[in-house]
C-alpha cells in the first residue's frame, strides 16, 4: 500500500490488550484518512446511550496518507471521539511531528477504548507495543510530562500528552505535542483523562512509500516553487497566524467584547509589529512544512514574565485580547503559556470568560456567582486568577470549566442574549457579520461553530482559491445571502477531503489549488481520483458525520447562529449588517 501503512492499532484499556488490524486499501479509497476514516470507525463503534466518558467512547487518532512524506503542510493527525463539551461528534486536528512519527512506527491510526484503573501511557514502535505505568507523569503539566517521557523513552520519540485539565476532565481539555501543537477543540484531552491515558509515545523510522516516486519528486519541486511565490505563505512565515490580525481589526473580522463592539483603537497594540517588538524571539515549524508559521515568544521581565516557548496564535490573541478587551501581548503570552501547560483550549476558555463578563456587566449574574472574582472586561488580574483555576476546577475555575453551554443551562433564558455557541461549541474569532458565507458555515458545522469544519472560512475570507470549482469563484458579495448555499455545500464536500481526510493545514495548504492538491494525493497513494471523485467521497463523509450528530439528537434545527452573532453592530466596518441565516439555510436544504 502506498501512502497508507495499512495498519490500525486497537487498544483496550480494560483488558490491557491490543490488536494490530490490517486495513484494506478499499477502506481508504472510500474514507481517505484523517477524520473521514475516523467517522466510519466511530460509527462502527456506536452504541446506544454512549456517553463521552463511558469506556466505550473510542478515541480515534488518525493520520492522512501524506503524513510522513515531504509533502508540505500535511503531516497532521486528527483525534475524534464523542465530545464531552458538546455531546456530539468531536474532532480536532493538529500539526507538529506526531503524525509523521506514527506513520514511521508503522501505523495509520490508533483506536483506544476501555478505561484503565490506574494512569497509563501507550508506547508504540515497530518492534514493541506496550501499555505502561504513567503514575510518575500523572499530575504533571504537558511540558513536564513530555520532558519526562522523552527522558524515559528516548529523544527520538514523539509524544502527545494531556495536562491537568485533561486529567480533571475539563470538557475543553486539549492534547499537546511539543508544547505548542495542540489538538485544541471539543475536549479530546478530557476523553484521554477519562480513560486515565496520559500520553501516547511513538518511535519509528519506517519510511512512507510513495506510489509514483519519480513523478512525485519532480512535481514536489514545482510545488515548492509555488510556496516560495505565494504571498500568504510569506505573510505566515513573517508573522505567523497573527499576520492576519491587522486586517481582521480593520475589516470587522475580529470579534470584540463578546461580539458587541465594532471599533477598538487600542486593538492596534496586538498587531504584527507589536508582536515582533514585544514578545517574539524565534520561529518553529511542523514536519516538512516550509512555511514555519509557529512563533516562539518570551516575556523577559515584569508581572507577566514568561519562559521562552510557543507563542499565542491569532485565535488566542483575539480571544484574550479583543474579546476580553485586554490590549497587552505580554499578558496574552503569559496566559497562552498557562493554557498550553495545563492543556486546554483558548477559544472555548476565552469565549466562556467573555460570556461571563458580558452577563456580569449587564447584571444577569452577580459576583457571588463568580466565586467573588470581579470578572469585568479588561480586568487582567481577574482573568489571570480565572485562567489559573480552570485546570484544577477550583473556585471560579469550576464554573468556567463547564464551558458556555452548561453555564447557560444553569442561568436559563437570560443567558441566550449573551452566549456565542452553535451546537455547544463557542464560535472562533472570525465575525460572520462581515462574511455571510461564514454564518452558514458556522451553523452547519458538524462539531459546532467552527472555521475549519469545512473550507468556507479560508475561501470566503480570500486566502484560499480553487479556481477549478465554479462555486468558489463567484459566491456573491460578502454582505449578501445570495449564492452562499451552493458555495457552502462544495466547501463542505471538498473540505472533507482537503483539510479533514488528507489533513492539509488550512494555512499551509492554501498555497495550492485543487488540481495541485489532488495530484499530490494521487501521486502518493497511487489512486487516480479527480476533483469530482473526491467531492463525492467528501460528501459521503460529511453525511456520516452529520448522521453521527443525529444519533445524539442534534439535527437541522440546531444549525442556527446564536443571537449575538446575528445582532448588527452600531459601529465599525460591519455597522448595521447581519446575516439572515434562515434564508440561507432554506436555500441550503432545498
Amino acid at each position, binding site marked *: 500500500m502506498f501512502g497508507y501503512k495499512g495498519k490500525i492499532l486497537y487498544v483496550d484499556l480494560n483488558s490491557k490488550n491490543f490488536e494490530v488490524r490490517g486495513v484494506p486499501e478499499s477502506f481508504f479509497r472510500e474514507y481517505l484518512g484523517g477524520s473521514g476514516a475516523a467517522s466510519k470507525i466511530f460509527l462502527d463503534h456506536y452504541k446506544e446511550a454512549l456517553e463521552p466518558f463511558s469506556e466505550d467512547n473510542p478515541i480515534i487518532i488518525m493520520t492522512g496518507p501524506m503524513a510522513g512524506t515531504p509533502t508540505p503542510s500535511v503531516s497532521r493527525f486528527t483525534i475524534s471521539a464523542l465530545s464531552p463539551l458538546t455531546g456530539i461528534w468531536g474532532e480536532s486536528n493538529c500539526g507538529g511531528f506526531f503524525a509523521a512519527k506514527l506513520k514511521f512506527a508503522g501505523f495509520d491510526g490508533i483506536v483506544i477504548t476501555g478505561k484503565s484503573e490506574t494512569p497509563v501511557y501507550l508506547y508504540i514502535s515497530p518492534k514493541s507495543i506496550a501499555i505502561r505505568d504513567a503514575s510518575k507523569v500523572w499530575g504533571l503539566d504537558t511540558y513536564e510530562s513530555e520532558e519526562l517521557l522523552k527522558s524515559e523513552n528516548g529523544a527520538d520519540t514523539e509524544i502527545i500528552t494531556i495536562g491537568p485539565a485533561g486529567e480533571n476532565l475539563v470538557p475543553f481539555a486539549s492534547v499537546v505535542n511539543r508544547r505548542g501543537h495542540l489538538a485544541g477543540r471539543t475536549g479530546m484531552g478530557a476523553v484521554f483523562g477519562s480513560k486515565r491515558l496520559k500520553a501516547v509515545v511513538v518511535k519509528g523510522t519506517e519510511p512512507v512509500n510513495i506510489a509514483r516516486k519519480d513523478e512525485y519528486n519532480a512535481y514536489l519541486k514545482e510545488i515548492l516553487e509555488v510556496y516560495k511565490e505565494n*504571498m500568504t505563505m510569506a505573510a505566515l512565515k513573517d508573522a505567523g497566524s497573527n499576520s492576519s490580525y491587522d486586517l481582521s481589526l480593520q475589516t470587522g473580522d475580529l470579534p470584540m467584547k463578546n461580539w458587541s463592539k465594532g471599533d477598538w483603537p487600542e486593538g492596534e497594540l496586538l498587531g504584527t509589529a507589536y508582536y515582533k517588538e514585544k514578545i517574539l524571539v524565534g520561529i518553529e515549524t511542523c514536519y516538512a512544512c516550509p512555511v514555519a508559521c509557529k512563533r516562539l515568544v518570551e516575556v523577559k521581565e515584569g508581572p507577566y514574565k514568561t519562559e521562552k516557548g510557543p507563542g499565542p496564535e491569532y485565535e488566542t490573541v483575539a480571544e484574550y485580547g479583543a474579546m476580553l478587551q485586554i490590549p497587552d501581548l505580554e499578558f496574552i503570552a503569559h496566559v497562552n503559556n498557562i493554557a498550553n501547560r495545563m492543556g486546554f483550549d483558548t477559544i472555548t476558555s476565552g469565549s466562556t470568560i467573555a460570556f461571563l463578563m458580558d452577563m456580569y456587566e449587564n447584571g444577569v449574574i452577580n459576583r457571588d456567582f463568580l466565586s467573588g472574582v470581579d470578572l469585568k472586561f479588561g480586568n487582567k488580574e481577574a482573568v489571570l486568577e480565572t485562567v489559573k483555576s480552570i485546570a484544577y476546577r477550583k473556585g471560579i475555575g469550576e464554573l468556567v470549566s463547564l464551558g458556555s453551554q452548561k453555564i447557560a443551562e444553569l442561568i436559563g433564558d437570560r443567558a441566550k442574549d449573551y452566549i456565542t455557541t452553535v451546537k455547544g461549541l463557542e464560535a472562533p474569532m472570525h465575525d460572520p457579520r462581515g462574511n455571510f458565507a461564514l454564518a452558514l458555515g458556522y451553523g452547519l458545522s458538524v462539531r459546532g461553530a467552527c472555521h475549519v469544519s469545512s473550507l468556507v472560512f479560508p475561501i470566503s475570507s*480570500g486566502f484560499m482559491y480553487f479556481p477549478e470549482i465554479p462555486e468558489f469563484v463567484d459566491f456573491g458579495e460578502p454582505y449578501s445571502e445570495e449564492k452562499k448555499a451552493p458555495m457552502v455545500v462544495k466547501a463542505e464536500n471538498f473540505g472533507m477531503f482537503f483539510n479533514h481526510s488528507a489533513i492539509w493545514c488550512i494555512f499551509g495548504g492554501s498555497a495550492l489549488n485543487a488540481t495541485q492538491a489532488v495530484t499530490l494525493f494521487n501521486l502518493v497513494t497511487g489512486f487516480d481520483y479527480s476533483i469530482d471523485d473526491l467531492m463525492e467521497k467528501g460528501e459521503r463523509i460529511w453525511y456520516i458525520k452529520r448522521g453521527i450528530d443525529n444519533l445524539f439528537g442534534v439535527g437541522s434545527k440546531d444549525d442556527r447562529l446564536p443571537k449575538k452573532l446575528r445582532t448588527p453592530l452600531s459601529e465599525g466596518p460591519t455597522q448595521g449588517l447581519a446575516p439572515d441565516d434562515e434564508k440561507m439555510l432554506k436555500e441550503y436544504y432545498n
Partner: protein
Amino acid sequence: MYFKDSEELKKILGGFFEKAAADKDLAKEFAKSKLLIRFNYTEPELSITLDMTDGENIVVTYNDNEKVPEVDMSMKADTAHKFWLGKLNLTMAITRKLMIVKGPVPKVLAFIPVLKPAYQMYKDYLKEIGREDLIEVE
C-alpha cells in the same frame, strides 16, 4: 472603468495621495514605514510612486522611472479605487492575483495598520472634489 483616462486617474487618485502628503500628521504616520512604494495601474495606465524614505514626508511622483521602489504593486485602477474605498478584500485580491505585490512582505504587513484613516479620507476627498458618483461601487 471608473476613470476614463490616465489624466483623470492622476487627478483623482494622484490628487488623493497629494492631499495625504499635505496632511503633515497623516504623512508622518504613513512615513513611519520608510517605504518607497510604486503603484502600477492599468486600464487606464499610470504609475504613482510614494517616497516615504525620510520617515517624515510623502513625496508623490508620476511615471517615475528613476526611483527604485522597495515594494511594487500592480493592479487595475478600478481595483485600486475599490481598495481605497475600503471595499476590496485585500487578501482575496492578492490570492486571485488581482493585485500583484513584489517586495518584502514584512514591510507590506507593517504598512497595513496605518491605512485605516485613509479609507474615510478617500471618501471625504471624493465628495470634496465633487465626485460622489465614485463612492458607490459594485
